[in-house]
């Protein structure tokens, strides 16, 4: 692996008494797609949420260990969480556009970060929508409500909204679980294109999706990272029996 963009060392997380992440040590390669798989409750979404400190929003969470973005420990108290979340964007399970126009959904982030010039915003909106493969479908109705879009379009809009603030890393928490196969295929194509410019980390319950879209796959079980390797190795000849049993459906 080349120089990692995100690295964790002995990362542990507790939800109150529950030890949800146990000694996670991994390196995420830049401009690649990394998938996290594992049964429900294994900690994959918890780990994903550590990467932009979304767990800060949950009460009684305690984190120990090291979590670095470009070599800087983002768990330290002086981390500017707003700036961190600009660098590490996130897309959720269900599309969650703001109840505003398509244009305003995209322009919102850049405005928060101080961009108010109309021309500049226009350019960002177009570029973000193009990157999210949505521009051609919405260019004539930018000022209509985002809630009028289909589920798949709304999810791509949320990706475009994330792209508008030019993050380095995009976290996706089961981005296709609420979508039909055609919308899912569009998001998967998009992930393939996004990794030219961004690092993508995706949590998915759909193992075939992990196999299709990712370069690296981490298998988690009961809060531990059991195996982390190239996706071809994980799906062709995993080294751990636990991984083998999970991906071949012998438990789960």
């Amino acid at each position, binding site marked *: 692996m080349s120089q990692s963009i995100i690295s964790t060392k002995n990362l542990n997380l507790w939800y109150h008494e529950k030890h949800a992440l146990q000694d996670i040590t991994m390196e995420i390669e830049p401009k690649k797609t990394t998938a996290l798989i594992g049964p429900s409750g294994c900690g994959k979404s918890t780990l994903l949420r550590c990467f932009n400190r979304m767990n800060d929003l949950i009460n009684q969470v305690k984190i120990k260990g090291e979590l670095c973005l470009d070599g800087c420990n983002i768990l330290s108290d002086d981390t500017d969480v707003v700036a961190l979340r600009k660098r590490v964007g996130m897309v959720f399970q269900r599309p969650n556009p703001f109840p505003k126009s398509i244009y305003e959904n995209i322009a919102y982030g850049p405005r928060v970060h101080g961009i108010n010039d109309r021309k500049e915003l226009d350019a960002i909106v177009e570029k973000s929508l193009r990157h999210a493969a949505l521009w051609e479908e919405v260019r004539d109705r930018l000022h209509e409500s985002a809630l009028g879009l289909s589920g798949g379009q709304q999810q791509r809009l949320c990706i475009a909204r994330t792209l508008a603030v030019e993050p380095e890393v995009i976290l996706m928490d089961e981005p296709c679980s609420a979508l039909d196969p055609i919308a899912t295929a569009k998001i998967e194509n998009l992930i393939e294109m996004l990794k030219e410019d961004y690092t993508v980390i995706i949590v998915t319950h759909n*193992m*075939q999706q992990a*196999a299709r879209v990712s370069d690296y796959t981490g298998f988690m079980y009961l809060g531990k990272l059991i195996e982390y390797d190239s996706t071809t190795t994980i*799906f*062709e*000849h*995993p080294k751990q029996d636990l*991984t*083998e049993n999970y*991906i*071949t*459906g*012998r438990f789960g």
Partner: protein
Amino acid sequence: MTDKFHSELKELKKGVSDMAWFAFSMLTDSQKAFINQDEALAAAVIARKDQIREQMVTLEETCYQLIALNQPVAKDMRVIACSLKVIAASERIGRYGKSTAKIVKEIAGKPHIANMMSLPLMSEYVLAMIDDALTAYDTENLRKIDGFSARDDAIDALRHSIFRESITYMMENPKTITQATYYIIIARYLERCADHACKIAENVQYMETGERIEIK
């Protein structure tokens, strides 16, 4: 993956094993028929050729369906990949049995040349290799295929020696040309069958460990 898939996969492996041992029996019987000049047995081998083809088509179809409907991964995927190779190799082995049986009919009534050179020995070695390769597939025990490379070399050497010996006989006595030429052909068939045993062994290794090896 569902229990249904895993039981279908088990059934597939059983079916492939049955086909492979059926092909093995075709080759074994053809060798017996050749050595003992047993035309009736040769005819029985030839009669099995349609069956082996039918088995191949059915089993391949099962593999494709299992892949299309279940998208298997890891060992499940490797079992199917290996099974497809075993099906192809077995069909070839069965066909070499049939071709040998045809030769038995061609040279019926003509006595063998002396000790048939090393053909009975070569036949024994090759059948043992196929036996071990198929046992490895059935039992998933890789020890059976240890040393396949050296065994394949021994087969190649035997084929070469049978070729040289046949030429010598033909030069000494042109009346032996037909017989000796068929010996060369059968030695060639046996050598190809040993290669198929090696291919099966390579694929069993992949099935078990995910590691690609080359036996040469």
